[in-house]
């Protein structure tokens, strides 16, 4: 392996993956309560929106790190 190769974010990926998995586990093991509140509408509309945003950040960062570990990165010279 070349000396200039970037260090792969194993630890970060593991932490994010763990957090994402735990979040999915929590949500799906409490699905009845979740569905009770998430469909109430009105002010409760914030719940599905915030949840979708939360998962997109946690799981999205995890996915991004997995792709980096797999060596799938943007072509050199593109942005940063």
């Amino acid at each position: 392996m070349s000396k200039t190769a970037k260090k792969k974010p194993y630890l970060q990926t593991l932490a994010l993956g763990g957090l994402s998995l735990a979040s999915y586990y929590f949500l799906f093991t409490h699905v009845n309560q979740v569905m009770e509140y998430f469909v109430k509408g009105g002010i409760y509309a914030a719940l599905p929106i915030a949840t979708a945003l939360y998962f997109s950040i946690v799981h999205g960062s995890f996915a991004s790190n997995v792709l980096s570990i797999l060596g799938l990165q943007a072509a050199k010279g593109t942005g940063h």
Partner: protein
Amino acid sequence: MKKWIVVLFTAVFMLMMFAPAAFAESAPPDNFKIGSFTQVNEASHTATFVPSDTNEPATVKLDEAIKAEDVKLDDKAMVSFSDSNGSETVTEITVMFLGLTRDKLIALLIVGLVGGLLSGFIGSGGAFVLTPAMMSLGAPGAVAVASNMCHKFPKAMVGSYKRFRYGQVDVKLGLVVAGSAIAGVQVGFQIQKWILNTWGSAGSDLYVSFVFVIILVVVGGIIFKDAVTTAKGKTEVKTPKLAARLQKIKIPPMIHFKKADVVISAWVTMPVGFATGLLAATIAVGGFVGVPGMIYMIGATAMVASATELLVAFVMGMWGSIQWALAGLVDIRLVLIILAASLFGVQLGALGTTYVRDHTIKLVMGTVMLIVAVSRGVKVPVYLAHLNIISLDKNLANLLDSISFWALIAALLVAGGIISAAMVKGIVRSRIEEKEAAVAGRA
């Protein structure tokens, strides 16, 4: 630049506040309540219904068409009411949440992954297959639309962030298009409503299909032809003729879009956004006109247009999701299952764009649009039969339905195939070049 962006963000969100009905993909229905039944009384043909919002049980009458066994106790349901007979009567009961089996889970993950890949690459797509896919798995139409939208905006957010980092998003252009698209959605929704009231559901389906097929065949054909022509040439075509002509119109306010490298009148950008919104409200895939509009009318490259469309999808999707969530129709389980795969797909599609040239994005977009046009086109005879304009054999109608569904799946698979092949080719080429450069450096 920064001042401009703050002003535009404020303008777009102000517009949202004053446009309460502005959301893509038609409006959430309003003649229903969400809740569950706890008891049915066959003798009096009534049931005890507990609405989710108030939790106060009430006895409701059941319409004659509803049998006692149709009332599933304790399942969350969308319940439609009519005020006939002077009191509230239940006219329709739709169980809201489909049971999730392993097969359904796998289907949602696969469609999510490929749909995400497509969105990351061409800026839109995924929605055209996700909503019908959820419905064919058993989700009611309204829940499928709501869940699709609530999954779309975080996916578009992640995708646009990635492509912003690759230097492909024109934030100002995205906000201008999103702002005018909100106005387009309003008008599109009113047209839909008028058609629905005048010609009913089959008439509305026919209108949607007609618009869908015409636009997809014409625009998809133009993009496909352009992709093939530019793929043959060694260099990309600079500015399309129409965009070059439109850029000469100097009616103020003129806007400078830095990333797109275009100075153009707001009177040109606004119709593009407006048409995007109009189409989003009509055929649910605004990006199919937004991206070509940004390329052929404004003069952005396919790379910038597809990246910018993700920002437009985020802004519009977020607003739409709020509306559908207010109505309580989002099935968060579906949203999160699809996101689990689509967040990988969208980032893979986004990084894929860094290995390809403009014509590959156009090729994928043109191909997808033409196949999706076939999918909707074959349904036209079905809707004509519903309107009693032609007669259609039941078996033939079923066959056309399945051709329509499988054409959507084919569109996803073909697009996924082209994107993956182009990406692998690009990555291999880039690694060979890196190795050659390293060898040359050592020598």
